[in-house]
């Protein structure tokens, strides 16, 4: 718990009378919508990043838009912070509650409002699960392209908040490329709409700011997404390499050859071994790195692209290349990659997933740096990458019950992120900053840039009530973090003073 108070210490404080907030919410919306009992609040203490927890004053679960507006207006009048939440699968603590705030869960707004197969658009409420959109569109031969690995559970509202990606981003884009319009409310409960169902929208591109804003600019109650025609065929190719550097170079060579694979994933030997022990995908465990390359399109296109990829990979040192013979085998190739996180969970009581993105050319250098850090921090790290777009997901294995291990894991992760910035990349490719990477924002952005972010937030939310204290660090926090980074070189990590 001390971790949480530490993470909040430099934020604006809100003078909130918890008993009054609960009473007023209950009076306005009733116990079916407002949860206040401690045992009912426990499931909302954290999102997918469970090391950061806090108990909110209350959880509001609106069943319709009117109840959203009622809650927002009431909380705005009382100046109470609001933390919007979807399915709670986020990996950066973006939906972590605050002790002086209320969680607004949009999970019950889960209706698919309309699907227009001719216009290739779906209008859905924010609590609709990502995969449910594709399932509803399937009868028309259409689907929703962004496919974060949590897609069976995560909601489109959460995807909008985080600008979620997935394994097909290089070819089909992120959430921001596939959301046409959103409708919702300001913190004051005023209706707003951003974007358009037309090919573009007038005025400043406010939609671009709202997508990926981590629930800090507006509360979204309806999302219009673009649907794409389902490719006729997809085939996957699996290639083994004797070094991670060679695999990294092969990735660059595929792109340089003018090929945009539908998916291009990489796993290092540690990740492959973990996965094989878990689900027996048939991966060669003697390789230092594996690539999965997918081609999709018409029968003719896929045949041509698979052949071109195979020859590029062989020319760049692949020791073995397999092409999926049928759909079952293609799914088996992917099953291993998709099981990487739970496989890490079997090897170790806890794991910590990082999310830096780097230029593709730096993949080999980064992997070598991570290998060195494993020694230094005394912790193992498995590496799975969205190699096509340079997005890394190193999985640091640790045991939270052993004193100092979480602190070492956190410092290890921070160093990976800071190295990502130094290599010309970013601290987060698709998981968001949330509360987790707020310190590293000090490294990626200057004080003036962070000031501009605060100003952008204030343009949407002048009272600063929507998810305050996330994503953008204050000057004070960055000064503290700067001091701590200086110490880190000189002191044993286990004894790090936490602020």
């Amino acid at each position, binding site marked *: 718990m001390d971790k949480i108070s530490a993470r909040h210490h430099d934020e604006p404080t809100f003078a909130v009378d918890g008993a009054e907030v609960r009473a007023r919410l209950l009076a306005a919306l009733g116990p079916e919508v407002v949860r206040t009992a401690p045992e009912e609040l426990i499931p909302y203490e954290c999102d997918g990043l469970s090391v950061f927890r806090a108990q909110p004053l209350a959880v509001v679960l609106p069943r319709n838009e009117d109840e959203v507006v009622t809650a927002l207006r009431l909380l705005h009048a009382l100046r109470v912070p609001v933390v919007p939440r979807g399915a709670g699968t986020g990996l950066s603590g973006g939906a972590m509650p605050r002790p002086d705030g209320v969680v607004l869960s949009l999970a019950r707004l889960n209706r698919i409002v309309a699907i227009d197969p001719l216009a290739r658009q779906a209008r859905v409420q924010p609590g609709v699960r990502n995969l449910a959109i594709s399932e509803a569109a399937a009868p028309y*031969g*259409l689907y929703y392209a962004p496919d974060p690995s949590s897609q069976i559970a995560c909601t489109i509202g959460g995807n909008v908040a985080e600008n979620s990606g997935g394994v097909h981003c290089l070819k089909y884009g992120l959430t921001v490329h596939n959301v046409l319009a959103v409708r919702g409310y300001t913190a004051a409960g005023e209706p707003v709409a951003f974007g358009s169902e037309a090919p573009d929208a007038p*005025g400043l*591109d406010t939609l671009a*700011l709202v997508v990926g804003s981590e629930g800090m600019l507006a509360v979204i109650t309806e999302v219009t997404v673009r649907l794409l025609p389902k490719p006729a065929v997809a085939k996957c190719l699996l290639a083994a390499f004797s070094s991670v550097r060679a695999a990294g170079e092969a990735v660059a060579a595929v792109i340089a050859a*003018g090929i945009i694979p539908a998916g291009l994933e990489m796993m290092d030997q540690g990740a492959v071994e973990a996965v094989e022990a878990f689900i027996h995908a048939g991966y060669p465990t003697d390789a230092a790195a594996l690539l999965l390359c997918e081609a999709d399109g018409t029968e*003719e296109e896929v045949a041509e692209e698979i052949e071109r990829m195979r020859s590029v990979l062989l020319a760049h040192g692949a020791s073995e290349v397999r092409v999926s013979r049928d759909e079952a085998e293609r799914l088996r190739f992917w099953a291993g990659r998709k099981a990487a996180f739970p496989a890490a969970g079997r090897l170790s009581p806890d794991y910590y997933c990082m999310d830096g*993105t780097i230029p593709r050319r730096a993949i080999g250098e980064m992997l070598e740096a991570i290998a060195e850090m494993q020694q230094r921090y005394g912790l193992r790290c498995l590496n799975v990458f969205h190699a096509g777009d340079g997005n890394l997901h190193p999985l640091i294995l640790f045991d939270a019950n052993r004193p100092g291990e979480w602190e070492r894991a956190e410092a290890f992760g921070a160093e990976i992120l800071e190295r990502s910035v130094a290599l010309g990349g*970013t601290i987060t490719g698709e998981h968001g900053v949330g509360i987790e990477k707020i310190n590293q924002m000090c490294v990626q952005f200057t004080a003036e840039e962070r000031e501009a972010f605060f100003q*952008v937030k204030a343009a949407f939310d002048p009272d600063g009530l929507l998810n305050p204290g996330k994503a953008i660090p204050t000057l004070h926090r960055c000064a503290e973090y700067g001091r701590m980074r200086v110490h880190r070189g000189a002191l044993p990590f286990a004894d790090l003073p936490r602020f």
Partner: protein
Amino acid sequence: MAETIAAWQEVIAAARQARQQVVIRGGGSKAGLPWQSCCEGAVVLVTDQWRGIERFEPSELVVTARSGTPLAEITAALAEAGQWLPFDPPQFAPGGTIGGAVASGLSGPTRLGHGTVRDAILGVRLLDGRGRVLRFGGEVMKNVAGYDVARLMVGAWGTLGVLLTVSLKVAPRPVAEVTCAFSFDAEGAQRQLNRWAGEPLPLSAAFWHDQTLWVALRGSAAGVQAAKARLGGEVVGAAEAARLWAMVRDQQGGPWILAEGEVLWRLALPPAAPMVPLGHRFWFEGTGGIRWVVANPEWDGFAAATALGGWAWRWRGGAVGPPWQSARSAAVAAIESRLRDVFDPDRLFVGGPFAKG
């Protein structure tokens, strides 16, 4: 490099002091657009000497260039690596720059199959109206650190600051392409296009005018060949097709020639919005979502677009001043105004096609 930025910071500081407006000018290729004509006593900040590609590595699919770099220089460098700017930006006159392409947010007809400049932006460096040099986004494909201010700059028409450098995602140029022509009325063309767009076909661009529909297919040799057989139509020669798409993209000749007193509107509508008669004459791009309408000065394009579920942009002719674009709700207009306060509190930068605010 530092000198140029310092000099521009001084220009901005002086303009703030003197309460002068600042016109940002690249190659001047969009100077003819009515909202770009301004204004007596304004300081002109010309970016055309601030040029050069800073980084381009074909295997990264990213180009980073100074804002004054001519589009021609960038497209030539990309072509040498077998790549292109997939949004194929309009060039209304020679000399267009990459900064202008980003600031205007305009994309050519290939937006149908390959996305827009908004889709391609990865990062910007910006000199804002407070004199701050700010960097947002970066040079990697996926980046969710901080609000997506880089994308906000696309289509902001320089109202939020001077773009210094831009980083864009580029793409391999499709190896095969063919343009086919079909005989259709507007409604039939729209219906057919939206159906095709729901199938996995390499549709790249579409244009309907005067009972003829042109469709460009771009992709792998095998994919284009198969799609051509699927679609049918009459194959247009490569040279003629290149002229046609340049005409559509750059708004030169053909239907773009207006008679005295005519007003040209751009209506952006849901792609399947009813294909009703609009103005004296109209034509469309994409699957029917971008309709160009020529009308007399009394015709209200804003009302017509609203009735069809979209929005309108008065592109040429008609009243001298704003409004050029459909209005937003009061709440959204207030947010836009406060965003301008963030980056340009003194409203130094000439206002693009936006209402005062």
